[in-house]
């Protein structure tokens, strides 16, 4: 790493002050000065010693611009082909080092930064991840902030990067450090998707009235339940359907920043906060700069499952039509669906949606079984449940697997400091806000990790298995299979077929008990030996292939199984076959 410390000769106080001003600018992520032309030597001994130290420790030549890794973005194509495996992380906690094990990163402990995040990239690659979803990186607002650090979704300035994410041992500014991180990701084949916040912090609202939404009585519009943020106003006049040019400009500037950073795509937080027309400008704008720039919408279902005051309706299809490549969908309520057919019906609904006339090809979902807005899947059924959802994500059609940092070891996201008052003077009237069971967005917290590394091991194997059967899984048809003697409807059974090859997925969605039943697999010969391609976990399961393709199953709790079977004509067997429009 080249040193960023300039070769300077400080001659007088005026120059010292000038230097100090420049250091300050570095700290807030401003553009670095390209050169320093100071020829006189410092007269102060202390200052000279300081400069000497800097030169000795960090012989970085920050006069040279950062060399970027040559990278060709293809995230949009990958998303279209359902080949993306996403890992969501918060930079300030990703590789934080909690020495005293109090879950909180305090003075003396190493926070998560862009540079120390690089240490974990190989871990993600090993897990089969190829895309990182970086949660917002902007400095949070201070006023009305939640937690001690403020929510990552409460930006002070969307065009700035949080200086807390800078590694002080490296002289480069935070933006350059982010670029370094991105390059390291690219070197490993990891794409980077940056989060675009949907709202402003209170401070940002105060500073930028032209961007903000107001009630007619002059009060700022606040999304219900989120008192630390304020709504942007996408409309100049909603009746006339004219857009707010200031907000558009801000978003364009954000995209410019992303392009400069070489970010591969954007995950739009609460995409419904802006209308179709807005995205119909922004997304093409991004793609004019980078045609493979990918877009992921946080949008769930047409009938707003979680209506909020001051928040617009959720319209997934409109989001996809206006340019988003993928969206969240409803997998996060998989634990609330009580029957297996509800999952199947949902998948079918999405596949049918892709076939609609005005729907462009290649739209997909992410495997949003657990996002940062959901409680840890460990609460829904422990390790077995985590593995079950991993398996399903890996094999469902039009689904790009998605995981949140901490999932790989079963982090329950329980923090010891939960809701405790701050004990430092600076934050004396605040407390450590936390959403119990969810990844902490409001504090500098420990690196997400649990006590079940076997989840990560399973994930590794399954992602490898997915890779091996990539064609079938990403392009194949989806054939729900009939089940019998399954009164509780807990057996998930479907086949994926592509060019004569078939994989069979049978899973038990019940995390509390074993499940027996029959699965009809047309064309499967009696006595066919089913070999589970997914690693074993939990209780044993038993399968027996009988006459006419009837498979007797006796599965352990929340067990997932995948088999390759010899049924080349399964699509002609009379069962309903669904395909994604690719």
């Amino acid at each position, binding site marked *: 790493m080249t040193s960023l410390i300039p070769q300077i000769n400080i001659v007088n106080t005026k120059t010292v002050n000038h230097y100090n001003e420049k250091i300050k600018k570095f700290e807030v992520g401003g553009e670095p000065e390209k050169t320093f032309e100071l020829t006189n030597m410092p007269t102060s001994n202390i200052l000279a010693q300081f400069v000497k130290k800097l030169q000795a420790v960090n012989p970085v030549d920050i006069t040279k611009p950062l060399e970027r890794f040559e990278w060709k973005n293809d995230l949009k194509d990958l998303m279209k082909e359902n080949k993306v495996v996403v890992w969501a992380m918060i930079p300030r906690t990703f590789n934080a080092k909690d020495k005293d094990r109090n879950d909180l990163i305090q003075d003396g402990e190493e926070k998560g930064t862009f540079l120390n995040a690089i240490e974990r990239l190989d871990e993600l690659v090993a897990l089969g991840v190829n895309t990182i979803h970086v949660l917002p990186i902007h400095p949070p607002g201070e006023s009305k902030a939640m937690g001690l650090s403020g929510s990552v979704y409460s930006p002070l300035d969307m065009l700035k990067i949080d200086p807390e994410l800078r590694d002080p041992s490296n002289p480069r500014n935070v933006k350059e450090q982010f670029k370094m991180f991105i390059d390291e990701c690219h070197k490993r084949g990891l794409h980077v998707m940056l989060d675009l916040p949907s709202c402003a912090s209170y401070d940002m609202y105060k500073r930028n009235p032209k961007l903000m939404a107001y009630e*007619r009585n002059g009060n700022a519009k606040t999304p219900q339940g989120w008192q630390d943020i304020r709504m942007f106003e996408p409309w100049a006049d909603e*009746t006339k359907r004219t857009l707010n*040019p200031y907000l558009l400009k801000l978003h364009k500037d954000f995209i410019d920043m992303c392009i400069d950073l070489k970010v591969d795509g954007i995950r739009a937080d609460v995409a419904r906060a802006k209308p179709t027309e807005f995205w119909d400008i922004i997304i093409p704008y991004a793609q004019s700069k980078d045609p493979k720039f990918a877009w992921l919408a946080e949008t769930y279902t047409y009938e707003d499952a979680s209506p909020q005051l001051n928040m617009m309706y959720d319209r997934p299809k409109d989001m996809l039509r206006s340019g988003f490549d993928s969206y969240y969908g409803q997998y996060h309520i998989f634990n609330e669906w009580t029957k297996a057919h509800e999952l199947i019906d949902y998948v079918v609904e999405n596949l049918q949606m892709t076939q609609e006339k005005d729907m462009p090809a290649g739209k997909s979902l992410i495997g949003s079984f657990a996002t940062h807005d959901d409680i840890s899947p460990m609460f829904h059924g422990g390790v077995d449940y985590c593995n079950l959802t991993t398996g399903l994500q890996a094999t469902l059609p039009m689904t790009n697997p998605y995981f949140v940092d901490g999932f790989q070891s079963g982090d329950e996201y329980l923090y010891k400091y939960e809701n405790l008052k701050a004990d430092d003077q600076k934050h004396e009237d605040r407390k450590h806000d936390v959403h119990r069971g969810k990844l902490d967005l409001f504090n500098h917290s420990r690196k997400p990790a649990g006590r079940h590394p076997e989840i990560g091991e399973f994930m590794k194997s399954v992602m490898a298995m997915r890779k091996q059967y990539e064609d079938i899984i990403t392009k194949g048809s989806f054939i729900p299979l009939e089940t019998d003697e399954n009164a509780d409807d807990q057996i998930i059974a479907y086949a994926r077929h592509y060019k004569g090859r078939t994989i069979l997925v049978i899973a038990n969605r019940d995390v509390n008990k074993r499940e027996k039943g029959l699965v009809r697999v047309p064309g499967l010969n009696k006595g066919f030996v089913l070999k589970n391609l997914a690693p074993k976990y939990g209780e044993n399961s038993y399968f027996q292939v009988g006459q006419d393709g009837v498979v007797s199953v006796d599965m352990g709790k929340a067990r997932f199984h995948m088999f390759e079977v010899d049924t080349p004509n399964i699509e002609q067997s009379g069962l309903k076959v669904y395909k994604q429009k690719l």
Partner: protein
Amino acid sequence: MNLIDLTLQKTYVKPINPSPVKQSDEKLAPIATTSLKKPHRPERSHLVKDPFYMAPVNFVTDIYENIVNIKKGMMGKSNDHDLGRINDFAMKAGALGLAGYLFTRAKTPMAKTMELFGFGSFFASMALWPKLFIETPLKAMYGINIHQKYIDHEGRKKMFFQDPQYVPWDLYTSDELAKLGDKLGIPQNIHNRNEVIKRKAQKIALQGNTLWMLTAGFATPLGCSLICDFAGRKFISPLLDNLKMKKAESNLQNIEKIVENAFSKYDPKKLNGLLDLYKDREIDAKIFNMIVQNLLHDDDILGSKAIESQLQNIVSANKDSATVEYVDKFLKFIKDNACNAEDFKILEDSKSVIKNFAGENVNPRKFNMQVKYFLMQNDIDDLTILEFEELVNKFKSQKTNTNVMKLTPDAIYNIKQLDRGLFEFATRKSVLDKYKQTYLGDVAESIAANKWNSITSTFFKTLNVSSEELKKAKLDGLASYDILLDKIQKLVANDEAYKKAVSKIQEEILSFDSLIMPDAANGAPQGVKAKIIDGYTKLLEEQAEKFNKLGFNKITERLLGDTTEQGSLKANLLDQTRRRVDELRNGFYKILHVLDCFKRADDVKKGWDNSKFAQLYRNLSGGHANIPVNPTMRTLEKDLAQFKKIVLSATIADYTTKFGYRNPQFPLYDRMMKLIYSTDFDDATVAALADKQLGGTTFMAAFKKKINDTLSNLGNFVYPHADKVTTRNVVGSVGDILVRDSLAGPRIDEVFRETASNISNSAKWLKMFGGGFVALVGITLLAETFFGRLPFAEVYKRKDKN
């Protein structure tokens, strides 16, 4: 200050004033989106625009959906919305169950009907109140349907404004929104007009729904009671009457079918079991009584005595056979006991023929019948035949060696025949009894009872009783008399009002008469009375003949009695019917009579010489001992007070005791009765009653007859051994109690008080409920005029605020 602001104020973090940021002076123009992708509405989502007449269809489909939701809920497939809707169904089902239970407990058809109608009207009131008084006025005032429904993209029907955090405004096109804004009075030229439109519409919807919640608890029961009251009086009661009459007529027409159906279901298991058990065995009194009980068919009208007697004949007679020895004994008995043995000489002469009728296994009863027919065939006169029957009975009643009761096969056969005959009789009679009860029954909701209520109400209304007087009349018997007296006197003083009152009452009476009285002369259809009388006559005669043919003469006797029919069932039934009709009509006519009496008495004010009443009084005063020869106005006025008192409040006891007139005052009693029961009606009465359309002279004649009959039968009010009334030499007897009751008619002051009580209660509740409802409607409509007000500043947001 809204909830969010209050929440914000509670935050523990004090806002830090951020350092000001130099804002760019650049002014950017809003960006048009005409060519950009617009949001789409999924095909299935749309507003529901059902017209009013679809409400019943929607009611039914909603119930169907609720049932489907229950099924889904039980299978674990429901969501919150579905489960919430089950509540609607549960409420309806529960209410229906309650109504059904109360239906089974109600005694009369009207009460039963109102239980179910009440159930329906409760839900109708619940549905109509918001529709008529909240939704419709708000739509008229503001152009917004606060109960607008929509179909979501999964085909579920939901309320548009149900969730303030999710109002699917994208179902409105921009044109529709603009129109709505015009109706809401939102100015055209304000910034972001749609926002204001939505805000105001949601505000009105919220206020409307809040008002609905506030008022529904009052409006639903008030509305329900008013609907029930109105519908009950105007529609349900007449409808039920019509239905009852139709059913009664239909049953009468189809009596054969009814009997056929009854027989198809008739299975006398108990009787047959008893007979089988004791077949060919002798029976004692206990078994005998059991058989009798089984033959009664819950209708003891025949009396168990006739059946016992007949049964005795059956079970006893068969011990003897009509053997040759029997024949000899029989003929000897006849010869020895006949009044004139010569009358029965033919039997001796034709002994060989007679003996042919006999045999070892011949039933003596059969033998007796054959002998009887033999006599009839040989032209023996009726009297002799009758004597023969008496002799046969005497012969049978003689103690024989074999006077034991036994259930021989013949006896069993005859008992079964008797049973069938009695069952048929009971079935046919029950149809007629029900018919009679429907029209004439002394029970609530019979046609006669309803007619009585109607006439008394009409009479009451003609008196124009104020609400204050009504209250007094209801509570105090003395006060009610005074009020009645006062009102009648006022009524008769006004000729027009009097004529109207008389005409109305006449109309009521005619409607009853036209239903009950016609006797099919001149091709007119038979009235109820004639149908009942003819029906009973035909029934009894036919059945008597049937019983007679089967040899059940005891039963025949009971049905028809002897040639005079005295004491027979036939005489009983016919007499009851006639007396009941008379009783009813006497009551109706009494009201007219009372009015006429007062009208006649009213002309006393014309003076001693000009008054007709005074003239009558003078005429009735001469020629009697103990009556002053020269009656004066003073005596007239004194008698007038008594006259009015008798007319209004005489009881049966008063009639019986001659209103206190003791010997030697009976002539005074006589005069009073003639004053009261004079058929020289007042001119106004005659003019009113003579209206051709209301029966004219026929009615008048009937009315006169009633008065005359009463006058004629006054003697029947006299106790035994009392003095005779000079008009007729009749000594009354206890047996005439029924006659006098029907002639006297009801006590008018009591009728007035009861009617006052009923009307007062109805008026009180109507005032309370009706008044309450009207007040509620007024408040509701008034409140609605204040809906949707937005502060000026909210509407007119400054464009350059930022």
